[in-house]
């Protein structure tokens, strides 16, 4: 442990990016100070990934119970006990939090609790005490954004933070934003029995994903009774007793109990002394080079404050990278394109690499080949009664440069796809190897077989 005068690495923010940097730096023999004003684990553990996925699992259990008869299981679904759901969710978070606190100790990281402010390129002040570091890592993360003039009041107009704390299932909800967070909450609430309408300004749900994925999500949401309006902009909200009336630019209005604002997350960088220390900021984000160095020598940034994908595992990768870089290990930079993305609504969406449109834009229409394998041909997916596909995007005569999956549980399959993408595998290199039967992972195998010109269970 270092004295206040100098940690090898001083990290501001103890979320996914910050604590990963801390652990890896400590493993590499560096002394580490980690400053956190709330709880180690940050957004992901306490207000993001973990609690939302607990809700999504409860939603899956509810759907299973409701639909159990089609599997020959006699069940009567009697409703959601929101206190029970929350106890389950909070129990998971508490357990993982306890584990993480143990890791902070085990890794001999000095945890400095409090609100930190960068007061010099090598110093952070916390509650009047100044801490110095030979290297400083900024990892202050992100928070929910809203639209201009749309105030989040925390009860009728809420963000994901309040949505996670609700002690009831809203009878109805408007979800503003059809991106990851929006569709996840829409999916949960619908499974819990709410009337849900998503409003998305772009022309399709999950607009960051391949267009084919959006289509399946929209079709399935329609079947599930999740309403959505795409290509329509939000105009305003009126608060009433017991609800809100949301108006859209096309003149339509929607009444609902709550409005969830899920229009994205903005970086937490204001008032933290970053600009004063000379760090270049662009639209609130910290600007870095590919080695995550800010404009000030010795100061790095990781995670959601760095422009790009806002994902916990990108934070982990950033944190590990910076620690290794500081330790002189010369690690290879993190490539956002190789980072797998999962949207955990029902159906799940998972992808890595380029979408078909992106690939064509980069390489030209005639240099791109795609193949879509429908899960209708996949035994295990049939057993789960899920629909979707595995879609491959390849460079003609070259490697697989994009993998897109839709369907129940496909989030677990993207790990394999991620190796295929990052290892620049050719379709026939994957096709040589046979996937276990009957699994959903076979869909990836079949898609590669087909793309390699040797389809097995594929209808023309």
């Amino acid at each position, binding site marked *: 442990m270092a004295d206040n005068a100098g940690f090898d690495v001083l990290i501001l923010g103890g979320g996914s990016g910050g604590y990963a940097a801390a652990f890896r730096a400590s*493993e590499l023999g560096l002394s580490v100070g980690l400053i956190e*004003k*709330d709880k180690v684990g940050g957004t992901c553990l306490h*207000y993001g990934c973990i609690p939302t996925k607990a809700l999504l699992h409860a939603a899956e259990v509810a759907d299973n119970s409701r639909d159990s008869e089609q599997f020959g299981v006699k069940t009567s679904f009697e409703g959601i006990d929101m*206190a029970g759901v*929350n*106890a*389950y*969710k*909070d*129990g998971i978070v*508490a*357990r*993982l939090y*306890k*584990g993480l606190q*143990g*890791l902070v100790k085990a890794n001999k990281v000095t945890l400095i609790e409090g609100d930190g402010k960068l007061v010099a390129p090598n110093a952070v002040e916390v509650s009047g005490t100044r801490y110095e570091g030979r290297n400083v890592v900024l990892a202050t993360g992100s*928070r*929910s*954004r*809203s*639209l*201009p003039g*749309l*105030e*989040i*009041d*925390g009860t009728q107009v809420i*963000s994901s*933070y*309040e949505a996670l*704390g609700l*002690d009831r299932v809203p009878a109805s909800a408007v979800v503003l934003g059809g991106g990851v967070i929006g569709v996840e909450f829409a999916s949960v609430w619908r499974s819990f029995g709410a009337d849900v309408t998503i409003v998305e300004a772009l022309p399709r749900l999950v607009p960051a994903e391949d267009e084919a994925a959006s289509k399946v999500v929209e079709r399935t949401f329609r079947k599930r009774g999740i309403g959505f309006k795409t290509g329509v902009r939000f105009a305003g909200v009126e608060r009433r007793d017991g609800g809100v009336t949301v108006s859209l630019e096309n003149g339509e209005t929607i009444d609902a109990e709550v409005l969830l604002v899920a229009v994205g997350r*903005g970086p*937490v960088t*204001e008032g933290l002394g970053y600009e004063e220390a000379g760090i270049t900021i662009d*639209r*609130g984000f910290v600007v870095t080079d*590919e*080695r995550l160095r800010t404009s000030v020598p010795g100061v790095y940034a990781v995670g959601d404050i760095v422009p790009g994908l806002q994902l916990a595992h990108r934070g982990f990768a950033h944190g590990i990278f910076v620690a*290794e870089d500081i330790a002189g*290990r*010369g*690690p*290879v*930079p993190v*490539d956002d394109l190789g980072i797998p993305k999962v949207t955990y609504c029902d159906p799940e969406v998972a992808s890595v690499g380029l979408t078909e449109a992106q690939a064509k834009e980069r390489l030209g229409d005639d240099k791109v080949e795609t193949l879509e394998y429908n899960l209708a041909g996949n035994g295990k997916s049939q057993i789960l009664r899920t629909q979707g596909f595995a879609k491959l995007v390849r460079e003609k005569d070259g*490697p697989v440069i994009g993998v897109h999956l839709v369907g129940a549980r496909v989030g677990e399959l993207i790990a394999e796809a991620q190796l295929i993408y*990052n*290892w*620049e*595998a050719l379709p026939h*290199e994957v096709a040589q190897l046979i996937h276990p039967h009957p699994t959903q992972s076979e869909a990836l195998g079949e898609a590669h077989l087909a793309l390699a010109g040797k389809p097995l269970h594929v209808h023309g």
Partner: protein
Amino acid sequence: QPEPQAQPAPQAVATAPQTPGPQAGGPSEEVQLAQPPSTSTPTVQPSREPSGNGTTYVTPLVRKLAAEHGIDLTSVSGTGIGGRVRKQDVLAAAEAAKAAAAQPA
């Protein structure tokens, strides 16, 4: 995009009621909460550092391709992100080596 006025400031996060949830009736595994949840039991202490060229980014497919073509990976400059050695770099190196060998002595 302007920062919205009434963001739930992170401060609010810290002071908001943290409902621990009714744990009393929880299943017995909750009791194990006292234990750090994750354990890893390396039967052999894993070497802290990867052996060999652990810090250069090579994929097994590239490594094999290099071996096939007799290319020494440390002599290849990668064109991938951060100098990653890509398959095509190895193939290019193999081409170059072939061309060099074909050069009259």
